[in-house]
């Protein structure tokens, strides 16, 4: 399943456009990254694709179908959005939260079926959350909470995953775990779109990276060979970058004047 965005424009407040006349094709079966400076419209773009927001102008298609023509619940069964963080006003256990991921599959008054329970158990097991299932979400660590959010999305068994900053607030160990999980989900045939500031982790999980600046697409880096082109990143973030080569791909970082090499 692929996304096609045609002349998409959106703003939260009249006169302040966040996404501007965006044309983009996100191919099926790939992991596509979205990168850009703060306020570039990355998360907003993801919400537009998740149907959380509606474009002011332009159209979005999912496999040639305009989003507005697809039933809301049917769409939620195909596309799952994973936000950066959730603020829960009331206590909820890890299992209860993952169960809520099954909502798109449930008819209004039908009880939770065996298939639903299996999907929840599978999602908990995939994200290694079985031992936390009775723990309130408020009591688990930041890294575990990210896994709970992903497990909730996986419980719906979607074909497309929209991940908003899956690596933020995670230590390197958990970042690695999350990156490997994304690769494994891609291995099972899913289309994944990842918004992240962590350029080096995007290099490791993505096949394509879309560069956004001030609501417009400035580059679409197609294929890993394009990723380490420093000029593209320097233009995107308006700062010089250093580059090194790691065992699993290139590493880039902003050049910090005045710092000494260790």
């Amino acid at each position: 399943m692929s996304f096609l965005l045609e002349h998409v424009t959106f703003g939260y407040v009249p006169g302040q456009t966040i996404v501007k006349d965006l044309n983009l094709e996100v191919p099926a079966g790939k992991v596509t990254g979205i990168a850009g400076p703060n306020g570039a419209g990355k998360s907003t773009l993801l919400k537009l694709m998740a149907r959380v927001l509606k474009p002011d102008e332009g159209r979005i298609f999912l496999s040639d179908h305009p989003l507005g023509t697809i039933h809301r619940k049917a769409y939620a069964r195909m596309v799952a959005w994973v936000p950066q963080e959730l603020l829960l006003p009331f206590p909820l256990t890890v299992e209860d939260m993952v169960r809520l991921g099954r909502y798109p599959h449930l008819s209004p008054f039908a009880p939770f079926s065996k298939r639903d329970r299996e999907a929840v158990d599978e999602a908990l097991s995939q994200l290694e959350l079985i031992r936390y299932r009775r723990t309130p979400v408020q009591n688990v660590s930041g890294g575990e909470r990210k896994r709970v959010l992903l497990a909730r999305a996986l419980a719906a068994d979607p074909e497309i995953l929209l991940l908003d900053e899956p690596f933020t607030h995670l230590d390197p160990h958990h970042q690695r775990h999350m990156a490997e999980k994304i690769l494994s989900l891609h291995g099972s045939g899913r289309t994944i779109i990842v918004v992240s500031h962590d350029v080096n982790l995007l290099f490791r999980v993505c096949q394509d990276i879309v560069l956004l600046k001030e609501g417009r697409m400035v580059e679409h880096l197609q294929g890993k060979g394009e990723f380490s082109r420093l000029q593209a990143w320097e233009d995107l973030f308006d700062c010089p970058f250093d580059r090194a080569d790691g065992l699993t791909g290139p590493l880039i970082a902003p050049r910090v004047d005045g710092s000494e090499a260790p």
Partner: protein
Amino acid sequence: MRRTLLLILLLLLACLLSLGTGPYPVLDGLRSGDPTAWKVLIYLRLPRAIAAFLVGAALSLAGSGLQTLLRNPLADPFVLGVSSGAAAGMLASLMLGFSPYSISTFLLAFLGGALTVWSVAFMGTTRGRMDTTRMLLSGVILNAFFASLILMGLSYVHHRQLSSYMHWMMGNLSDLSLGTAGTLAPLLILGALPLLLLTRQLDVFLLGEETASSSGISVERLKRVVFFSASFLTAMTVALVGIIGFVGLIVPNLCRRWWGSSHTVLFATSTLLGGAFLVLADSAARFFPGGDLPAGAVTALVGAPFFLMLLGRDT
């Protein structure tokens, strides 16, 4: 399981106390075969117990719905200004010369509540979306506005009207008849039904508007239905028996704590516990010196230490 048993025991206790408590010794009368005992039971105690249960259930249900809608455990049925709107309507009715428990007073109080609901919805909507923060602010502002109007109005009413107004303001269940309880029941069911049909959607709404929307829920429709249903339940009860605080705030919080946040269970337990609690508070009101205090005056007095004790033991 223990908590469910406790709920059942509370319901039974509430029922027994409400029917047995009062100046006339009903139980003794029934034992001795006094026909007056049956009349007191059927025409006085039973309607009062039923009405108290329905009012407590409605306020708890409205509180549960509004706490989820506003994603705030401090929300109660009166947070959006419905009660002060209804109180202003009641005062207007008295100033126009209608008697305190007439149908005109009931209608004017309901109209005051309904107008406030409409104003909060109107002021809380931007670009076709209900903004819960704006709604909350609008409710607080309208509460303050109506409180001022009421204070101004009170300085112009006769002291006898003032007394009945204050009695109503504190939540008065003593004048309810079997007919009133019979009228209240279908209206409260009408207000509660939309909430009961939306439990699964409200579960997902706990995760936030955006997550609910991405899960396939029509969030704006859900918010409107919850807001108007909860407000209808509140306006009905306020217009009928006055302002009874505390029930709609604490009971849903306690139910979430004991039985979890699933709205099917939350609504069922809130309805039963809220109803039982108000029946108990109303029975307790009859024990105070002077007899028959307004139930709204004793809900917090009786309930606060009880709930604090339970919360303390639960932590």
